[in-house]
């Protein structure tokens, strides 16, 4: 049994999804989804522990040995991302019950849960697989279910947002598969480890460079790399609250994982960052994302969109670490996957509670007025998560930004360090707008009566808020895992 944990990690949610569709029972769907999420969390923690003690795990799917069969491969980096995805899932799943009741018609709930399970299976599959084409299939499983989840939002704009995301996402996946096709033509293998070895002996570099370009743009679309981020604000803003929380914390992060895997695990980093201009391109795009998206967030009136734009900026921090490509920068980048995932998860889960109290109307800045009185715990949670977004010491955001700063200074990029600090100040400004509205403004006459979100939802939200602080103080898992992963990518660890 323990030997088959890697397969179970993906198969469990994949099997539960059709079960939910067959039974079409709301209560069962919720219970099954929650149970699956928790089981996945346990499995991913067990796998992470085994990787930490015994090195990378290779699992031959169907007992076909790699590189002929599909290999599931768990190393320090994939174990870290597996924990991130299943951790978020296990906070969002129990929360979904009440949140959906307010936002989606009851007869459609089973669809949400089934799609959620499929999406979870896809995201975990992307992370765990060691096969380039298998990765594409999981990418599409997670994306297709995500489009459906977004389209289930209450407002009709959700449909257009889902359609636009679908177009851009599919172009991204198609580009990825074109890139993989070119690599397959050159190497004759789809196993990522095998491909990396054979690429070293390929003489004709032009198709490999074309593959690099296609994969970069394709995955860049999926992870909302500036300027390929146009789908993100609408998708985040109009999806049901639980979907936004799950999407914001996992989907883009898993795509970053794919990019890391290809840049440092398949292509030759010494060529990428030594001979090509990958570093300059990534640093320029990341800095552009950090500045422009933060400025847009500063003037946004819809609170969900505000934090969606802030996500574009935060993804800029993550890709910045890829551009720096040194130990500190990559550590910051990888630890920010987790820290930002937890922070944004907390914020969107709290906003879901707000939307519930406001009877499904969009949460605007004006609607936040007097929140400190009406929903003291929610307002307080927003403040803590907001501080983590800014990167105040003692919160999770500080840890990642500290490492990114160190990475930038080690590279001698003073101006990049300055931009990190400047955009953190802009983040402080837009978080302050929320705080100011919540605590310093009086509630308008027609505001909903005082009262918190239902206890189940509040518990999930506060759990995530506590994690924002926990990962800022006790960093042995988050930072330790990220450090191992960065070491692995740079060719020194397991």
């Amino acid at each position, binding site marked *: 049994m323990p030997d088959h944990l890697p397969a179970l990690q993906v198969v469990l949610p994949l099997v539960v999804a059709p079960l939910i569709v067959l039974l079409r029972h709301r209560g069962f769907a919720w219970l099954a989804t929650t149970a699956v999420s928790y089981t996945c969390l346990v499995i991913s923690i067990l796998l992470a522990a085994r990787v930490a003690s015994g090195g990378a795990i290779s699992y031959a799917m169907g007992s076909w040995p790699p590189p002929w069969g599909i290999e599931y491969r768990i190393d320090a980096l994939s174990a870290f991302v597996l924990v991130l995805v299943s951790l978020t899932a296990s906070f969002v799943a129990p929360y979904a019950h009440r949140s959906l009741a307010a936002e989606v018609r009851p007869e459609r709930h089973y669809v949400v849960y089934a799609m959620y399970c499929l999406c979870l299976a896809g995201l975990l599959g992307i992370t765990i697989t060691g096969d380039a084409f298998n990765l594409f*299939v999981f990418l599409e499983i997670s994306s*297709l279910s995500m489009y459906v989840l977004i389209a289930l939002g209450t407002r*009709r704009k959700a*449909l*257009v947002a889902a359609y636009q995301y*679908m*177009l851009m996402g*599919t172009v991204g996946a198609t580009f990825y*598969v074109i890139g993989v096709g070119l690599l*397959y033509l050159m190497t004759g293998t789809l196993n990522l480890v095998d491909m990396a070895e054979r690429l070293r002996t390929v003489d004709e570099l032009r198709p490999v460079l074309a593959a690099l370009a296609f994969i970069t743009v394709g995955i860049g679309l999926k992870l909302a790399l500036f300027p390929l981020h146009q789908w993100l604000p609408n998708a985040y803003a109009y999806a049901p609250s639980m979907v936004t929380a799950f999407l914001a914390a996992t989907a883009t992060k898993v795509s970053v994982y794919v990019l890391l895997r290809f840049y440092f695990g398949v292509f030759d980093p010494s060529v990428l960052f030594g001979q090509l201009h990958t570093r300059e391109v990534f640093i320029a795009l990341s800095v552009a994302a950090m500045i422009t998206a933060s400025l847009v967030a500063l003037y946004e009136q819809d609170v969900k969109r505000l934090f969606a734009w802030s996500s574009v900026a935060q993804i800029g921090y993550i890709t910045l670490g890829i551009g720096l490509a040194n130990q500190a920068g990559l550590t910051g980048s990888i630890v920010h996957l987790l820290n930002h995932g937890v922070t944004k998860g907390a914020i969107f889960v709290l906003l879901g509670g707000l939307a519930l109290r406001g009877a499904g109307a969009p949460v605007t800045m004006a609607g936040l007025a007097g929140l400190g009185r009406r929903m003291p715990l929610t307002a307080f949670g927003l403040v803590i998560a907001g501080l983590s977004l800014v990167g105040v010491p003692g919160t999770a955001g500080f840890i990642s930004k500290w490492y990114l700063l160190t990475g930038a200074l080690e590279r001698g990029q003073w101006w990049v360090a300055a931009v990190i600090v400047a955009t953190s100040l802009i983040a402080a400004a837009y978080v302050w707008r929320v705080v100011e509205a919540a605590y310093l403004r009086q509630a308008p006459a027609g505001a909903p009566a005082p009262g918190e979100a239902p206890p189940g939802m509040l518990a999930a939200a506060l759990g995530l808020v506590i994690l924002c602080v926990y990962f800022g103080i006790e960093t042995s898992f988050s930072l330790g895992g990220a450090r191992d992963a960065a070491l692995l990518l740079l060719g020194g660890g397991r």
Partner: protein
Amino acid sequence: MNAISGHLSYWVTIFLMVAGLYILIARTNLLKKLVGLAILQSSVYLLYIAPGKLIGGTAPIIADGFTVYSNPLPHVLILTAIVVGVATLALGLALVVRIREAYGSIEEDEILEQED
């Protein structure tokens, strides 16, 4: 001459790829955009399948008198990719139907003009 005739399948692939992307970007009709998407995806099918075929090659079954085999793996991969493509297209069409119900139009500019 060889650059064109010897790599014919690649030229067709590139043409389909660019044509699909152009339709996707240039058209405002949501259905036509999906057509572009479908063309873009078919270019990928060709990209994988064409190099897998050797002229005179047979299916990889060991038998007397046959020494040249075609690679079967790309076919299997593309079978999967076609299924993914069909699912994407079906979802896209379903979304267009719902958008038509909600907005009364499938022209992108007319939809974006309408407020919430």
